[in-house]
Structure formats: C-alpha cells, structure tokens
C-alpha cells in the first residue's frame, strides 16, 4: 500500500488565521478585478468588450514589427498584436473603432496583403462582436456566476445544514475570485472561455468541499464527545489523501491540455490548473473554518 502520509494528523484549523489572511488577500484582489472589469479597465476579450479579432497563419515566419507597420499604413490605430505559441500565427485585436463592423477585418487583410506580399497567409479565424452583443454576453456571464453560486448554496444547505452551505459557498466564491484576480494581475484576457473555466473550477472546488463536509457530518454523529474543531481536523485528515489524489489526476489532465491542447485552450487550462490548486487549498483551509466560525458548537444539535 503506497500512502502519501501515514495516518496524518495535521492541525489544519489551528492555522485558520493565516489561511484567512491569505484568502482575504486573494479575495480582495479578486474584488478589485471585478470592479476593474465592470468599469471597463481590465483586459477584456473581444467577446465582452466588442471589437474585431483576426488570427492569421503565415506561410513563413513573420516579424511582428512588419505586421504593425502594415496595419498602421492601413490607418488602423489602437490594436494589439500577439504571437501565438504555434509557429507563424499572429493574433490581431482591434477594440472599439468608429469603422463599421466588418470593415475592420477587411481593412486588416487588405493592408497586410498589400504591404507583405511575399508571405502568403490564411485567415484562421475572424471574430467580430458589436457592442450590443458584448454587453449582453457580459451580463449573461455575471448572471451565470451568480446563479451557480446560489444553486450551490441551496443544494449544500439542503443536503447539509445552512452553515455548511455558507461555508461551501464562501470557499467556492473565494476560488473564483482568486483565479480571476490572478488572471487580472497577469494581464491575461478576461473572456467567455475564462468564465467557463471559472464555473468549472467552482464545480470542482465544491466537489472537494462536499467530500470534506460529508466526512465531518459523519464524524459529528460518531464522535459526540470531541470538540467540533477536533472533529473537523480529524475529518480533513481522513480525506486528505483522497483530496490530494483526485487533485493530482485532474491536474495531470489539465497540464496535458495546457501543453498539448492548442492555443485556444491555453488560458483555459492555465485557469484550471490554478483553480484545482486553489480549490484544494480552500476545501481544507477555508470551508471548514468558516463553518466553525459561523456555527460554533451548535453543530451537534442537528443530525
């Protein structure tokens, strides 16, 4: 039998003050990110901000500088260039313009064909999003995150006790905030696919938390003589190896996606990797301490 730690007995709840401090910082960064996103100061993706994104695949290697010159000669301002990990691919993003939608992409391809005639390219993808659709997608995304959190709260409160529901929701929301905050600090694009990743992380982190709570509930019935804190500690220790093993397998697949899944899923898998690590941390260090803080000793009262 291979075991990570034989009969672990770590006082996780004793470290709750440090955990609250660390998590508080994560949460604050996340909240700042949300405020910045809402006021339009973050690096929003085309799908949220509106604009045009074109991905070109050149036959030969290409210097970003040449592309920049070509676009400037076509009268384009305010654009972002990005070289993709795959060879000879370039992503051009133009946010809000006065030009009519659809004309921007034509302008881009025309300028490049004219100025860089000796390096043929194909258009891999074009995304044009009008401000109306962008606003709607933003609202939808916010609604989705809110709905997911309410759904989680209701289910956990129904299956456990309301206090556990609050603990699980706070831990889950904390993970979403943390990953969003880190992405914001890294200057990564906030787009629909990141929101998808965040909701997946929420689901995953919740699974982790529920497994811990499940054991706490079971042990609360068995060990009525111990203090709540010690029951919680025992429970977390008991499921510790499961928590780590499952996180490892999800991490393994997320890492495979990160390295081999192609450029579109690159940021998605990065968010998943962070989310799995933070979610594991929060199910151990955040969820139970919150329940303890809120519920105190009355947890034994009910089933």
């Amino acid at each position, binding site marked *: *039998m*291979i075991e990570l730690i034989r009969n672990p007995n770590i006082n996780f709840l004793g470290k709750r003050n440090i955990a609250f401090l660390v998590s508080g910082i994560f949460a604050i960064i996340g909240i700042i990110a949300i405020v910045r996103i809402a006021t339009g100061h973050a690096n929003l993706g085309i799908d949220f901000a509106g604009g045009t994104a074109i*991905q070109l695949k050149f036959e030969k290697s290409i210097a970003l500088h040449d592309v920049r010159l070509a676009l400037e000669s076509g009268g384009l301002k305010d654009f972002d260039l990005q070289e993709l990990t795959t060879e000879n691919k370039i992503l051009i993003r133009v946010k809000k313009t006065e030009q009519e*939608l*659809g004309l921007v*992409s*034509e302008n881009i391809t025309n300028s490049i064909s004219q100025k860089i005639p000796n390096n043929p390219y*194909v*258009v*891999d*993808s*074009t995304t*044009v*999003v*009008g401000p*109306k*659709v962008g606003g709607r*997608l933003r609202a939808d995304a916010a609604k*989705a995150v809110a*709905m*997911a959190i309410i*759904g*989680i709260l209701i*289910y*956990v409160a129904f299956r456990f006790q309301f206090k556990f529901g609050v603990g699980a929701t706070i831990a889950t929301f904390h993970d979403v905030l943390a990953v969003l905050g880190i992405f914001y600090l890294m200057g990564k694009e906030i787009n*629909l696919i990141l929101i*998808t990743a965040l*909701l*997946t992380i*929420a*689901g*995953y982190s*919740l*699974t982790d938390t*529920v*497994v811990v709570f*499940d054991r706490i509930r079971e042990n609360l019935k068995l060990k009525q003589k111990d203090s709540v804190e010690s029951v919680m500690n025992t429970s977390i220790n*008991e*499921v510790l*190896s*499961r928590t780590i*093993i*499952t996180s490892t*397998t*999800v*991490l*393994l*697949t997320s*890492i*495979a*996606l990160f*390295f*081999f*899944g*192609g450029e*579109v*899923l690159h940021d*998605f*898998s990065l968010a*998943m990797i962070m989310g799995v690590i933070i979610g594991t941390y929060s199910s151990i260090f955040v969820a139970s301490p919150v329940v303890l803080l809120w519920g105190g000793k009355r947890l034994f009262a009910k089933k």
Partner: protein
Amino acid sequence: MKKKILWRLILIGVTLILAVVFFLPNTPLFPYMPEWWKKNMPDKGIVLGLDLQGGLHLVFEVEGNKAVEITTERIASRLRELFAKKNLTAEVIANGLTITISPSSPDIRKAVEENYPILLPVETGTSLVCKISDKEAQRIKDTTADQALETIRNRIDQFGVAEPTIHRQGENEIVIQLPGVKDPKRAIDLIGKTAQLEFKLVNDDTNVAAELPQSIAPGEEEELLKQFAGRIPEDTEILFEKRVNKETGAVRKIPLLLKKQAALTGDLLSDAKVNIDSRFSEPYVSLSFNAAGAKLFEEVTGANVKKRLAISLDNTIYSAPVIQEKIAGGNAQITGSFSMEEAKDLSIVLRAGALPAPMKMLQNVTVGPSLGRDSIEAGKIAGIIGTIAVVIFMIFYYRFSGLIADFALLFNIVLLLGAMASLNSTLTLPGIAGIILAIGMAVDSNVLMFERMRDELRAGKTPRAAVDSGYDKAFWTIFDSHVTTLITAAVLFQFGTGPIKGFAVTLSLGVMINLFTALIGTKSIFDIINSRRELKKLSI
C-alpha cells in the same frame, strides 16, 4: 449474489455495445460497414461544432425602425394624394418616424383619422404631428424580421450551403450558421446586402447638374454632398457610380443628379440571370420584369427617350445608360465590371428579393477549416496524454485496484463518446476540454471508494467486507459531489453560447456516466474476483 453480478455484466455489455454502435459513424471504420448496417444503424454520430469544422456564425440586427420609417414615408405620400383629391391644402412632410401636416384644420384631422386609424396624433396645434401607433409599429417590425429571415433563407438556399441554420432570436435579431463555407466574405456580402434595386431617371437638364464634377476620388463623397446640400432641387438626390479603370485598377466615383422617386423598383422583377456578353466576354445580369413591371418599364422608357436611366442597388449606381427607344417586353440588363462571382451573387440577391429593411451586423465568428483541424488534433493528443498519465498514476498508487479503476475509466470514455453520438450532440473546442477534464475527474469516485476500503482494511476487515462497506460508505459522498458539478454544468448550459453549451453537455454527460461506471462497473469487477474465492489480501 452470483445472479446479481450476471445482471450487472449484461447491463455493462449492452451499454458498451450500444456506445460502440452509436459512435461508429465517427470512426474511419464506418465506410467499410456493410450496406444494411449503414441503412439501418445510426449514421450521424457526434456532430462537429462550427469552431471545429470551420464556418460562419453571424448575428444580424434587422433595423425595424427603418421599416417603420419607410411605411411612414409611404403613408405621407398617400396623404398628399388624398388631400389633393379632397381639395385640402396642406404640406405633408415625413421626418423619420413622424409626419408633420401643416396647417392643421378640423377637416384634415378628420381625413387623417378616418383613412389612417393607425396614425396617432402626437401634437395638435397649428400643425398636426402624428406617428404610427406603437402597436402597429411593433407589428411592422415583427413582419419585417420575418420577411428578412425568409429572404435570407432564399439567398442562402440559392448560394448553396450544406445544412445551414437560420433562425430569429429575440425581437429583431437573426442568427445564421453556415458550416464549412469557403469564402466567408462573399457569404457575408450576399446575406447582408439590402439589395434595394431602383431605376431612377437622371436629371441632366438643371444647372446644378452641369456644375457637378466629372469624377471624384473615393472618400470625397461626403464633402461633395455637403457642398451641394440645399442647392439641388428638392425632389432630387446625388448618388455615385463606381468606375474601375481596368488597366490601372484606380477607382473613381462619378456623381449623378437623380430624381429621388424611383421610376421602377426591384419588387417588380420576375427573374434575374447571369449572361456573358459575347463581344467582351464579360458577365452581366439580365433582368425580366413581371407583367406590371414590364408595362411600367415600357411607359417610363417611352416617355423619357434620349434621357438617362440610372440603375442603382442600395444607393450605388451600377450604370446609367441613355434610353434609345421605348423598350417593350420587360427585359433589362445590369452591366458593370463584374467578375463572374459578383454577377452570380447579384443575380441571387435580385431573385431572392430585397430585404424589407437594412441589417446591421452584430456578431461574426468565422473559423477557417485549418484551425478546426489543428484544434481536433491538439485535443486528441492532449486527451491521449492526459489519459495515459492518469492510468499510470492510478496503477502506481493503487496497484491492482488502480488497474480496475483504469478499466472503469476506459469504459467511461467509450460510454461518454457513445452517449454524445446517440444524442447527435455537437462537439466544440471547449467540449473537447470538457471530455479531457472529465477523464481527470472520472477516477474521483474510485479514489473515494478505494480510500474507504483502505480505512476498512486498516480496521481489520476482510477484503470482501472492506469492498462492500467501502462502497456503501462512499456512495452518498459520490452522489453529492456529482450533483454539485451538475449544478454548474446546468448553469453553463443555460447561459452559454454554442461552444460553451458544448462544454456543458460533455461535462454533465461525463459526470452522469461516471456515476454509472463507478457504481456498476468497478464494483462488478471486485465482486467477480471476490466471488471466486475469498481474497486473503487486496492489492490496493
């Protein structure tokens, strides 16, 4: 006990066979299957989303207000006729969504009320200002969107796209999905063109017309219009003809002063075809009018011999030939420096008819076929590597039991693909990510059970008892943890657009199938092993 295992094995066997049958169309084996199989067995399998097979996803907004404006204008001109007939003197001006009639009198108000009950007075004083009632305006917008949808469907049918999806969304939006389109720009032009064909007489006689420059460079149109604003007669307008010099490729715009009122419009056409000019071997579009159109065309040409008649599409002039004689028979042609493709597309939009109102593009997601192929390849590689990593890890950590979990994992993957194929669900790029993540999460149920079994073994139970109570104790934990993932998947499905819906589908199917494979699959294998002889030791 043995009977129970048998039933479970049969269940596993049947689901496995079903999964393979459903997924077969997605494998390279399908073409080699016998004819009766292809005819009677599922042949669709998993459908690739637009982001994987390449294609266009477009959202247009039908500018319903423009349609209301057009109706308002039409009513205004009918009011003028009405007042003239009734010997009422009043000036009728249509201005966007309102009509101003001045001066206003009881007779005029009564005439308007009686003949146009859909007009609501907004302001009554020295002049009467009215507009179309909100309810009627709403009805106009609604029919406009329906008509636009129908027109677009016609155009796309004639353009020839396999399996297009075209539907209305919300009040005034039209969503169009065209998989596998090779020339997206051409398709967008074809769909988005209003295609309002008008024949307008050129007003060459006035002094202002003589002052117009021969030609201007593109981009100077606005300036020219500003310069002449207020100086041209009220019933005229300036439009431009685009001319391309064939040798140099230089573009010039030729301004023409036209009568605002169209002599003929495109709705009188019965057909439009592409022909090739035999002298210059240049394509042109020949038009046939319907009976009413032919009669009107004959009248107009007869009354305006030696004058020029401009043919304009969406306010751009294609040509403005001089009428040599009265033209009977109802045929006309549009020439211009067309390429074969341009001429073909022009004939399509003319045949399918004009859009009832202009459309504005709200969203365009175009994916080239090569990107989709690259994405699928990358997804396959990531999936295989991820699976191998998990398989090895499980064997390393749980030994023989890990191997059993790995079997359950492979079973899980086959069932997931089979389930997706049986629903003909759409696989998108995020969907691929969903499958790969599901692989990582799939072993969780087994991990939960194995850890419980280890607890029981440590407590001194026999392997068989450990397996049974390990399963029992882990059951509700597994159930709860799966439901929570389903909640977020449901939310994603609810709010997500195409690609993200695909992710939600794979994730939730993965979770549900996982519950099945963990509770039925792995347990059965343990039971079979245990039923032969009581194990002394469990490799876990």
